Each structure stands twice: as structure tokens, then as C-alpha cells.
């Protein structure tokens, strides 16, 4: 059957499933809308967190980025998984014990101040919007690539679907659609990976396969290092970033993961404290399945790409090459007119440009898999993009309806009115996100990675100290958050957009890139908070009791 029909069938069926789930599990109270009525079983919450977490970028781009960066790509692998250890050990159980709806709820109550709450809302909105604009764009790109519509139409279709199930279902609806989306996306990612691993190495487990030998008896990674040396690239298994920068970027991604409001709020949805720990364990296990497969896919496709194209006649290349050339994701320019493809590190001689996304997208064709698998991959990529967008939308809408309206502007709002406000702000947020998706401001691509730095610099220290120190007071926490997020915003706008006089790599402070600067800003946040809290009054005994209480297990 024709590929396009298969894609419509796979996408149509998966969308019908999501909408059906949303109708069955729609929210009828604010508790259900914000935190799914605290009734989500840990395994289901683990899957939902995994889907929430893994975006279109994880699904499509990550393996390709690792493929082109080799060892340096490890920052994403360790950074985006290691944060779950911090979540499970330092944040999730205590925030669940605290038992309210949002992260600003915790900051506002623990630091007994609406200023602290307001700063937290501001940080949550900045972090979530930088993140979601990129997601809506991702939804549009995936739609346009697979369904052959233009990006604007793609964004609009995606917007309508998310609007429907996020507004109707709230957190409860989103949770169960995310469970379904996780199943779709992990199946779609693993199937081609397993096939390719089996073809290249004879081992069906990709994680073991990429450490094995190919049919010529040479270890795959040794062969790849050799190919890289020959063509002038840096060795695949060692990096070219400085060790210090790798250290700081990994730390910023880990701590940022633990500070992202849309991830933290998932742990408010379970029944008890021990379930919050269990959810984090399941979530990381489900994420690790994809994250340990991605580096294997990266190696298979990198080797395959070099062996297929390097010094081969352009006319003799396989059919998939030509097909992807048509999309502009691969481009070839015969600089020395010899009809062969020179793929080397030197930009003067190199004739081939390859987009990172191709490494995952072209996999099924390279492995010669049937059309229905490509269709499932399309559904998987859409599941990844939609689930993340929906989770972020919910954070934005609850920040507005709960933290701003209910807690700060109009405390006497009735539950019914608050629920309407929550739904309306979700609608508003989707439209704004869709606008950014269709007219992406130049900074979106640059800032998605920086959302982690912002979260690390603002939330993480305030929450951790709120739990582990009884003496941390509102003056310290507010000053720390404000200094942390402003410092991060300053560094990122200076070196990414050239504000405040701009600057190049040479001017980086201590050689730390903007991506890694979140770790530095976080340390500054800690230092500022602790120093200021020493010179200002400690919180009164009610607050110290609150802290003691969140440290105890349930029902005590």
C-alpha cells in the first residue's frame, strides 16, 4: 500500500485514541484539572512523565546530534536522565507531601510571601514559554514532513488537537493520553533501531550491538574512530569541547530537568509520598529505554552514512539519498567536479551537508523497512511533540488561573469560576504558543536548551533549600531567585543575541558556554540566598513546622 495512506491511517488511529481517552477522563474539578485528583498509579505516572519529558527533539533530533558530535553528545544523555535522580531523592517526595497544586504554591507558602510566589510564577511562565514555542514549531514540522501539508496548517492541526484534550481533560485527561503516547512513541523508536542493530551486528539489542563487531570482525566504534580520523573529523569516542564546559553543561541540564515545573508537577498527581518516589523510578526507566538506544542509533547511522557516501559516485547512491535531497535535508555540491562525494571535516573541500534530523527520519529507508513502520514513526514523532506541548500548557494555565487569579488577585473566586479560568487560560496559552509556532521568533531554537539553565538558576535552589534548610527565609530565597534568573538572562542574551555588547567564545566567563552557565548561576543563587538569610530574621515557628512535616512520611 502507498506510504501516504499508511501514514494517514496510523496518525488518524492514534489521534482517535487520544481524543477518546480525553473524553472518558475529562476533569470535573480544579483538583482533577491541576493534578488529576491525586489518583494516578505510579507506573502510569512514570509513562506519562516519560512522554511529557521526551519531546519531538528527543525523538527526532537527539540521535542525529549525538551522531555528529560523538562523545560531546553525552551531555544530553547524562544531563537529561541524571536530573531524575535529583528529582527522586531531593524534590519529588517532599513536594508531594506538601500536597498542593503547583510549584509557585510551594514557593509562596514555604517562603510565606506573595512576592516569592509572584517571582516563582514569573520564572515558571518564562521557562514554560521558551520551551513550548519550540514544541509547537516541532509539531508543525512533523506534520508538514509526514502529512505533506505546510507548516502553518501543521501547527493549526496540532493546536486543535492539544486544545481539545488539554482544555477538556486537564491534567487527568493529559495524563492518560500521555500514557498512550508513550506506548506509541517508544514502539516507533525501538522497532527500526532493533532491525538496524540486527542487520549491522547480528545482535537484536541495540545497546549491546553498538559495542560489537560488524560483519568484517572490526568493532563498530573502532571502525568509526578510524573513519573519522581519515576524513579529518575529531575522533567519535573523544570530544572536542573542554572538560570544564562538558561538566557545566551536564550539570545545568541535570539540575534544570529537576527544576522544570512541568516535570515537577507530575509528582503532585500520585496518591502518596512513596508513590512519588516510585513514579520517578518508573519514569527514568521508561526514558532510559530511549536514551540508551539513541547513542546506538547514532553510531549505526553515522557509520552507514560515511560508508554509503564517502568517495562514492553521486549517481550510484541509493534511492533514499535522492529522496531526502529533494527535501533539502541533504545537499550535495560537486566542488571539484569529479562526480564523487567528498565528505570531510575541511569546509573548503567538503561537498556534503547533512541535517541532524535525517539520522532518525531516514533510518527505516536505509534499513529497507516496510512502509507501515515509517507510518508508525510518524505517529511516534507526533505523540512525542503533542505530549510535551500539552504538559507545558497545563503549567501555563495553572500558573495563571491558580497562582495568579486564585492566590493573588481574587482569593474568593469559586471553584467553578476557577475551573473556567483554568480552561480559558489554556485556550489563551495554546493560541499564543501556536502564534510563536507559526512565526517563530529567531531566538526560539537558541533558547529551548537555555530553558534548562533558567530553571536551574531560579527554582532548583529555592525548592531544595526550602526542604533541607529550616532557616532559609523569604529574603534569601527571593533574592537568590531574582539574582539567579537575571544573571542567566543577562549571560544568555549577551552571548546568544549580542545584547550588552555581545561577545564571542573568547569572552565566556571561565570558558563556560551559555548552555552550561545555568550551573554557575545556580551556584550564585545558592550563595546569595544563604548570605542574605544570615542577616535577616529566620522564618517563624509555623514555617519551621511545615518543613518538619514535609520531611515525615505519609500518615504520621
Amino acid at each position, binding site marked *: 500500500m502507498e506510504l501516504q495512506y499508511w501514514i494517514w491511517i496510523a496518525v488518524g488511529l492514534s489521534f482517535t485514541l487520544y481524543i477518546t481517552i480525553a473524553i472518558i477522563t475529562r476533569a470535573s474539578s480544579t483538583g482533577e484539572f491541576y493534578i488529576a485528583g491525586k489518583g494516578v498509579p505510579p507506573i502510569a505516572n512514570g509513562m506519562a512523565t516519560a512522554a511529557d519529558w521526551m519531546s519531538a527533539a528527543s525523538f527526532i533530533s537527539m540521535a542525529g546530534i*549525538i551522531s555528529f558530535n560523538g*562523545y560531546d*553528545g*553525552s551531555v544530553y*544523555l*547524562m544531563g537529561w*536522565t*541524571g536530573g*531524575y*535522580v535529583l528529582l*527522586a*531523592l*531531593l524534590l519529588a*517526595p517532599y513536594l508531594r507531601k506538601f500536597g498542593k497544586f503547583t510549584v509557585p504554591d510551594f514557593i509562596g507558602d514555604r517562603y510565606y510571601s506573595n512576592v516569592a510566589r509572584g517571582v516563582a510564577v514569573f520564572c515558571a511562565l518564562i521557562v514554560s514559554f521558551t520551551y513550548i514555542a519550540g514544541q509547537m514549531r516541532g509539531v508543525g514540522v512533523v506534520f508538514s514532513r509526514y502529512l505533506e501539508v505546510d507548516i502553518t496548517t501543521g501547527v493549526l492541526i496540532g493546536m486543535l488537537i492539544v486544545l481539545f484534550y488539554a482544555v477538556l481533560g486537564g491534567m487527568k485527561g493529559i495524563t492518560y493520553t500521555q500514557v498512550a503516547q508513550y506506548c506509541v512513541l517508544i514502539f516507533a523508536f525501538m522497532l527500526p533501531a532493533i532491525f538496524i542493530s540486527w542487520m549491522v551486528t547480528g545482535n537484536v539489542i541495540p*545497546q549491546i550491538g*553498538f*559495542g*560489537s*563487531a560488524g560483519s568484517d570482525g572490526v*568493532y*563498530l*566504534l*573502532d571502525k568509526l574512530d578510524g573513519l573519522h580520523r581519515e576524513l579529518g573529523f575529531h575522533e567519535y*569516542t*573523544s570530544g572536542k569541547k573542554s*572538560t570544564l564546559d*562538558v*561538566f557545566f553543561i*551536564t*550539570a545545568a541540564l*541535570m539540575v534544570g530537568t529537576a527544576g522544570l515545573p512541568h516535570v515537577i508537577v507530575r509528582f503532585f498527581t500520585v496518591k502518596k509520598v*512513596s508513590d512519588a*518516589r*516510585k513514579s*520517578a*523510578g518508573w519514569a*527514568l*526507566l521508561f526514558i*532510559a529505554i530511549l*536514551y*540508551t538506544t539513541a*547513542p546506538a542509533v547514532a553510531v549505526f547511522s553515522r557509520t552507514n552514512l560515511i560508508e554509503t557516501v564517502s568517495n562514492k559516485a553521486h549517481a550510484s547512491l541509493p534511492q533514499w539519498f535522492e529522496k531526502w535531497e529533494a527535501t533539502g535535508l541533504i545537499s550535495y555540491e560537486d566542488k571539484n567536479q569529479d562526480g564523487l562525494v567528498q565528505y570531510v571535516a575541511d569546509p573548503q573541500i567538503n561537498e556534503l551537508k547533512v541535517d541532524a534530523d535525517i539520522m532518525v527520519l531516514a533510518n527505516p529507508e536505509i534499513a529497507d523497512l516496510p512502509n507501515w513502520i515509517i507510518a508508525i514513526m510518524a505517529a511516534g514523532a507526533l505523540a512525542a511533540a503533542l505530549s510535551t506541548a500539552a504538559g507545558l500548557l497545563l503549567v501555563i494555565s495553572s500558573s495563571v488561573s491558580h497562582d495568579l487569579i486564585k492566590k493573588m488577585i481574587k482569593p474568593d473566586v469559586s471553584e467553578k469560576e476557577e475551573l473556567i479560568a483554568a480552561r480559558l487560560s489554556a485556550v489563551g496559552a495554546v493560541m499564543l504558543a501556536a502564534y510563536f509556532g507559526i512565526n517563530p521568533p529567531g531566538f526560539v531554537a537558541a533558547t529551548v536548551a537555555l530553558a534548562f539553565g533558567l530553571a536551574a538558576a531560579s527554582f532548583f535552589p529555592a525548592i531544595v533549600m526550602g526542604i533541607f534548610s529550616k532557616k532559609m527565609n523569604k529574603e534569601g530565597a527571593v533574592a537568590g531567585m531574582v539574582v539567579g534568573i537575571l544573571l542567566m538572562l543577562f549571560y544568555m542574551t549577551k552571548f546568544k543575541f549580542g545584547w550588552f555588547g555581545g561577545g564571542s567564545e573568547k569572552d565566556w566567563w571561565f570558558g563556560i558556554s551559555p548552555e552550561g552557565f545555568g550551573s554557575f548561576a545556580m551556584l550564585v543563587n545558592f550563595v546569595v540566598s544563604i548570605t542574605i538569610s544570615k542577616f535577616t530574621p529566620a522564618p517563624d515557628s509555623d514555617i519551621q513546622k511545615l518543613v*518538619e512535616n514535609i*520531611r*515525615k*512520611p505519609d500518615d*504520621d
Partner: protein
Amino acid sequence: MNRVNNYWKTNLKYLVILLIIWFTVSFGFGILLADSLNKIQMGGFKLGFWFAQQGAIYVFVILIFVYIYLMNRLDQKFKNQK
């Protein structure tokens, strides 16, 4: 009060031990010591590279499940002391 204090102290002890392991496998083996470990070969993998792209992630998953086990045991003990 002593009972609550002991619970918290034991929890902190677990946290410190598990976070030291967390730091060692990722920032230690995967980054700071990666170059030296790369001289050791494990099957087709150089060890430092393996920790950075595989090993650290497996250890992360194990760490959380160990913490779940330890805390469930501690919660039970805490309950029995009542």
C-alpha cells in the same frame, strides 16, 4: 521527637551515599576521568565513553530503585516504632 529525628538523619545518610555514587559515575567516570578510562577496553567500548553514553544512565535507574527500597523499609520501621 527522637523518632522523627532518626528518620530524617537516616534519610540524609542514604541521600549522601547515593548522590556520591550519582556524581562518581557521571561527572567522575563519564567526564573528569573519561580520558584515562578510555584506555580500558570493554568489548567494543572504551570504558569512559561507555559510562558517558550508557553506564551512567543504567546506574541512575538502579540508584532510584535502591532509594525506593531503602525508604520503604525505613517507612515501615518508622511506623512500627509508633
